[in-house]
């Protein structure tokens, strides 16, 4: 096998791992989880052709030991397969309302930290940056890049959206599991423009959202993407609001 072939095989494995992860363990049934006390020994052991078997998030949840980090570092290679900032961006056929709704579904209000739509390690610092540093786009699945990488205790703000622990099916209903009537501030749909083709203002806070690429770059949701991602100095044309940004000196 020549070098490029080996790379192709390797990438295929990496893609498989990522894909299975994204699919959130849909191939694992509850029956598989019955005796997890014996699973610890299996982790990372059954290598096929020198490659660790892909493990679902469900498996990671119940038995997080030995999470592979060898392949994780090579996700860079997978990311390289994604779009480039110089690629032409077409917003044709893209539904802004659908993308905004999808974005809003993960947040209690505009500005709230989004919830994590997949299982993560519960016992340690999860390796969020593996996928979320530069972002990753793969067959319609999207890991958006994070906008505040200097904050390192990710799970302090971002939590999973379903039970991270097994069991409890026979518990009585939680008396506190009542409806919550909070209605959160909606996301802005567009920034104001001074005239039809003027560059729009930034219609949201930029605090902890200062990396525009996070949502508007090549790995942002389709409808939020900039048509000109190669232009890196966003605030040259798009002004942030001093008031929304709680900037000092703004009277109230």
């Amino acid at each position, binding site marked *: 096998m020549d070098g490029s072939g080996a790379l192709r095989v390797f990438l295929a494995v990496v893609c498989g791992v990522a894909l299975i992860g994204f699919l959130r363990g849909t191939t694992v049934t509850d029956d598989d989880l019955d005796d997890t006390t014996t699973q610890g020994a299996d982790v990372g052991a059954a290598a096929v052709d020198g490659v660790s078997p892909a493990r679902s998030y469900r498996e990671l949840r119940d038995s997080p030991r030995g999470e592979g980090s060898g392949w994780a570092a090579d996700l860079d290679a997978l990311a390289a397969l994604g779009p480039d900032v110089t690629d032409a961006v077409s917003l044709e056929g893209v539904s802004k309302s659908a993308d905004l709704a999808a974005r809003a579904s993960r947040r209690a209000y505009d500005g709230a930290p989004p919830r994590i739509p997949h299982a993560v390690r519960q016992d340690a610092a999860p390796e969020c940056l593996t996928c979320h540093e530069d972002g990753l786009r793969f067959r319609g699945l999207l890991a958006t890049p994070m906008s505040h990488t200097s904050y390192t205790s990710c799970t302090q703000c971002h939590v999973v959206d379903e039970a991270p622990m097994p069991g409890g099916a026979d518990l009585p209903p939680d008396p506190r599991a009542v409806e919550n009537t909070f209605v959160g*501030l909606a996301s*802005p749909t567009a920034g104001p423009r001074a005239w039809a083709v003027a560059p729009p203002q930034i219609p949201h806070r930029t605090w902890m959202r200062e990396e525009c690429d996070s949502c508007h770059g090549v790995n942002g949701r389709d409808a939020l993407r900039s048509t000109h991602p190669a232009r890196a100095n966003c605030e040259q044309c798009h002004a942030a609001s001093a008031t929304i940004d709680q900037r000092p000196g703004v009277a109230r």
Partner: protein
Amino acid sequence: MTPDRREFLAMTALAAASAAATAATAHAGSPPPTAVPGGPDLRGRMGAGVTWNKAPCRFCGTGCHVQVGVDAGKVVAIAGDTAAEVNKGLLCVKGYHVGLALYGADRLTTPLLRKGDRQVPISWEEALRILADRAMLDPKGFAVYGSGQWTIPEGYAANKFVKGGLGHNHIDPNARLCMASAVTGYLATYGVDEPAGCFDDLDVADVVILWGNSPAEMHPVLFSRIVDRRARGQSVTIIDIGTRRTRTTAHAQHFLQFKPNTDLAIANGIAHLLLKNGTWDRTFVEKHCSFRQPLEKELNGKGMTFAEYEAALAPYTPAYVEQISGVPAKDIRMLADLFGNRDLRITSLWCMGMNQHTRGTAINCLVHGVHLLSGHFGRPGDAPTSLTGQPSACGTVREVGTLSHALPGGGVVTKEKHRHMAEEIWNVPTGRILDKPGYHAVEMWKRFSTPKADGGDIHTVWVQVTNPAQTLPNLHALVDPSRKDPEKFLVVSDVYPTATTRIADLVLPSAMWVEKNGMFGNSERRTQQWFKLVEPPGQARDDAWQIVALAYELYRRGHAGMKDKDGRFLFHMADAKGAAVPIWDFRHYYDINVDERLFEEYRKFSTMKHKNLAPYSEYVKARGLRWPVVEQEDGTWRETRWRFSESDDPFVTPGKGIDFYHSTTEDGRAQIWFNPYEAPPESPDAAYPFWLCTGRVLEHWHSGTITGRIPPLRDAMPQAYVEMHREDARKLGITNGETVRVESRRGTLDIPVWIDGRGSPPQGSLFVPFFDERLPINNVTLEAYDPFSKQPDYKKCAVRVARLSPNAAAPGGKAG
């Protein structure tokens, strides 16, 4: 809503807004952006209807400030407050979702009275009549059980009502369960409560030592403040001294796993090596410290010479400490080497691990002692700092003194001078305040659960802002019996149904957080203020109003205690023209700022122990100020970051450098204590072979009354569990997720197992979080408490674990 009320609300809002606008340092509001001139009006897209105001977060003792976005009378968004020094714009997942706290669909909106096995709605008038009947029945048996979540003015009103009005001292807070040992540790060491250092230490410390503490989940913003320094290229060594691995461990360079209760041996081991290696700070100690040893029942113990101190520590060799604690001798040496290096800045943090401890006072003193002995004190980054779990455990409980022995400003009821000061400020006759401490939390509930004939002299407990039927230890003994005794009457003020409201005789609906004016005091002596921003639902009303309204009902009935020396109502408040404002009538409660009035009165107490507070108006401008706050020559008010250090503390005698001006020995010295290691009251044995530890998780706050109603938090952590080591599970044939029975000598709980979950206990050790009302682990815990602080030990007792038979009952608790 009456027109008056509406007008008044508008005025309050206006007052709040203008007060904030005049503040030079306050800037965090985001007024609606105006439309771009000439452009289309797109304000709606930028949340134009939203007004923003500051408030401290409702949850823990960190004291983050949030910006609260309000639209059409409802909270719609939360943002980290970038002007806040504590959190610098960051929050944790609870803080980001604190706005949802107000909107659970089952808010309590009307007073409820138990009739048979139902609770039926009644009017506030009737509720107050019933409350007053109970108080008149026998005022000395009418106790108040409060909270570190009381705002400062609420706690102050309750304290004055009980100690200055009812004339007894049976008022104690849930904070007794939370930080009482930290208080006694500070008192025994420095003669005055609360940390000398502050959170700024976390920005510069080279080493942070976590003593049985997991800030990654319990004080996440402080933890980020430490670990995010690494992302900025700074280095900070984190040493996690714990009984189980946690999320914090994942960020720590060193994890020192110790056997429960043996932290005293570790601290003694460090001191032993500092002396042996000659690396203790002789200059600092000779100038600023004395030595102290225990003397039964005496918080201040008795003095000892250096030679005696050295001799007492002699047995605590690294090998001996390893044998007791399980921490390798090399790690004890590592700690001693760090403390022995004066070039390093070392901050110690602790919270419940050291406080919920039957030797809580002792271990608190020892950790202070290690810092004093090594001179790691009084410089930025060098500090022993206790953290608090509740937003105003410091502000309300410790400073206002809502404890059964305390008076505002650091006073105690047993000191005549302190009583006189309170009687003078309250304008009540001399002798009004009883000179005998009232019942502390465990004792209060014991008396409430004991029949009158057997000495159970507490007939009524009024609970505010806490959930004792879930959080007290050994509930079978402390709570349940009272519910079968017709002479006992339980009153609960709360915002949602809880384990406690469900068993209450009278339930009172309370306003919460930004539904009322408030003030909190966080773990670093920072006093914070906020204004009411939205209306409470239905007939929910401020806790302070409830106290004032009952006091007035008693006053109306002629209860002598509710009158001051001049025959006026105990909570008399006049308007600008001198006319009494009927604040007992809720329609007029916000005619004036009652919070400000109560705070300004309370402020008079604050100079006694040099805990000086600034006028209310200063807190309106600031994101909190750390006391002592002292007026400068130019009329500005200056806060203090490092107490007892001449570099920052205005009360230090010039030239002294360090000055412990409330020294118990009255010579400016702090006490370095020796306290021996002793075995805990209950240890695992053949019948009950496991240690049980209880605690919190990131997503839920205490008993989960609020966080359980916030969907993103509930979804992320929907149920409690028991953490168990994989090997223990394998031996017992237990699978992950299986429901097992955890049993102590006091009770049982059936609960699902989580192996390799959030935390990882070592073999022979279990952990259960206490937030889940359905899984009340406090049926199992032990009510043994520290002899000085009276704080129970929730962190260790002996239990066994058994698989359930296939026919076993569904999960839940059972009496033992």
